[in-house]
């Protein structure tokens, strides 16, 4: 009898399971998220771009969402996986609400949950292709953490994903201090986002800044940063280049 042989990938060490769909590479991706702790809570910034490879396909993607009463989640990486994570968190928060006992999941708990999800997916070789930033305030305690697609997680006073790690963190290490005011925090974030805008190819000039305090969270309307392109190096980029 002739059976239509299903196409087994060469790296199938798992037998029939290997036919299942696994995330191999991301398709629509978001770029960096940058966040820092300030006096009243957490400030987070992310642009609104969704890249399809090198094409800037979507320009109104909200990459930061409030989670429950006390947390804010920002994500870079595969947008569909981010939406899946939001779906999981919706259910988590719903069950938490249904207790109706005056308690609610705080940022530390949500961060822990996300870490477990990301790490377990990675162990099955089917990761959610995201780098997540989770910030929030509960009972006066500020919390800011991050989880990567392989489950690496930590908390810090300022975190960033993707290119933000290379371009924004050094600025934050220099200029961040305890008890930043809201204006100073925003200014610092905008400084980071501007550098990213200049230097990250997948960044766009349309960003949102989100803040979360004890009172609750707000995500700003999209806006653009002022940029300056009259630097002499930009005006004559080939000057001094070898062979010119």
């Amino acid at each position, binding site marked *: 009898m002739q059976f239509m042989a299903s196409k087994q990938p060469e790296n199938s060490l798992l037998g029939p399971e290997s036919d299942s769909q696994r995330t191999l590479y991301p398709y629509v991706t978001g770029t960096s998220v940058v966040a820092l702790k300030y006096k009243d809570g957490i400030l987070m910034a992310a642009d609104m771009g969704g890249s399809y490879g090198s094409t800037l396909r979507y320009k109104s993607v909200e990459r930061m969402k409030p989670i429950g009463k006390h947390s804010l989640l920002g994500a870079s990486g595969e947008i569909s996986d981010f939406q899946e994570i939001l*779906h999981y968190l*919706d*259910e988590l928060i*719903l*069950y938490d*609400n*249904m*207790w*109706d006992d005056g308690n609610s999941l705080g940022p530390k708990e949500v961060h822990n949950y996300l870490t477990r999800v990301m790490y377990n997916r990675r162990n099955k070789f089917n990761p959610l292709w995201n780098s997540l930033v989770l910030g929030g305030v509960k009972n006066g305690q500020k919390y800011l953490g991050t989880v990567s697609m392989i489950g690496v997680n930590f908390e810090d006073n300022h975190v960033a994903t993707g290119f933000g790690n290379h371009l924004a963190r050094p600025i934050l290490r220099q200029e961040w201090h305890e008890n930043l005011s809201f204006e100073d925090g925003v200014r610092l974030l905008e400084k980071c986002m501007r550098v990213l805008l200049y230097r990250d190819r997948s960044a766009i000039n349309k960003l949102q800044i989100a803040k979360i305090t004890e009172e609750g969270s707000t995500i700003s309307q999209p806006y653009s940063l002022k940029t300056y392109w009259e630097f002499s190096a930009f005006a004559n980029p080939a000057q001094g280049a070898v062979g010119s």
Partner: protein
Amino acid sequence: MSSIGTGYDLSVTTFSPDGRVFQIEYAAKAVDNSGTVIGIKCKDGIVMGVEKLIASKMMLPGSNRRIHSVHRHSGMAVAGLAADGRQIVARAKSEATNYQSVYGEPIPVKELAERVASYVHLCTLYWWLRPFGCGIILGGYDRDGPQLYMVEPSGISYRYFGAAIGKGKQAAKTEIEKLKLSEMTCREGVFEVAKIIYKVHDEAKDKAFELEMSWVCDESKQQLRKVPDDLLEESKAAARTALEEMDAD
């Protein structure tokens, strides 16, 4: 009304010669032995109240919740065997989250009632299962406004303006029928429910009880919430005064 089933009441898969399934009727008796549970549909929402009979003075007030959230917009008050009720609530929650997952919107109350009734009915079809010994009053607020349903151990479910189950259900139903529900707001409804529960509570047979009330209305942003403590206390006080005035006559 009650007749001995002798022989036809051993299994839920047996009909009696006069067409009754005794096991289901016995299950209903379990519900009748529990504290009164009532629900009313006011013009802007649903109010549900439970007469929680206190088994022991050492129980912490506020524990043993009898009204459970099923989704943000709906909840169930259970009368009868508490453990059976827990199972039904768990199933209802699972149905509600599944519907939300598949259709992307909160489960319509009608759909939820149908699913719960189906599940309860399921357990009356097989000899290796027993019927649930609980009655459920289900209240919710969806796109079609506030709705109230009641599910009995037989799996029957109807939509109501006002419903009562448990010990004082007859007296409670009479009281509910006197109310003009279509003109009442939930705030007023809370006072009425408290009054009714205090009224039908049998001081002689059961000593202490705790009143638990939840509502889903415009004031609670169409979400099922426990009636706020201050309002609850006010309504209890008003109910007690009303009772004293009645006794004074």
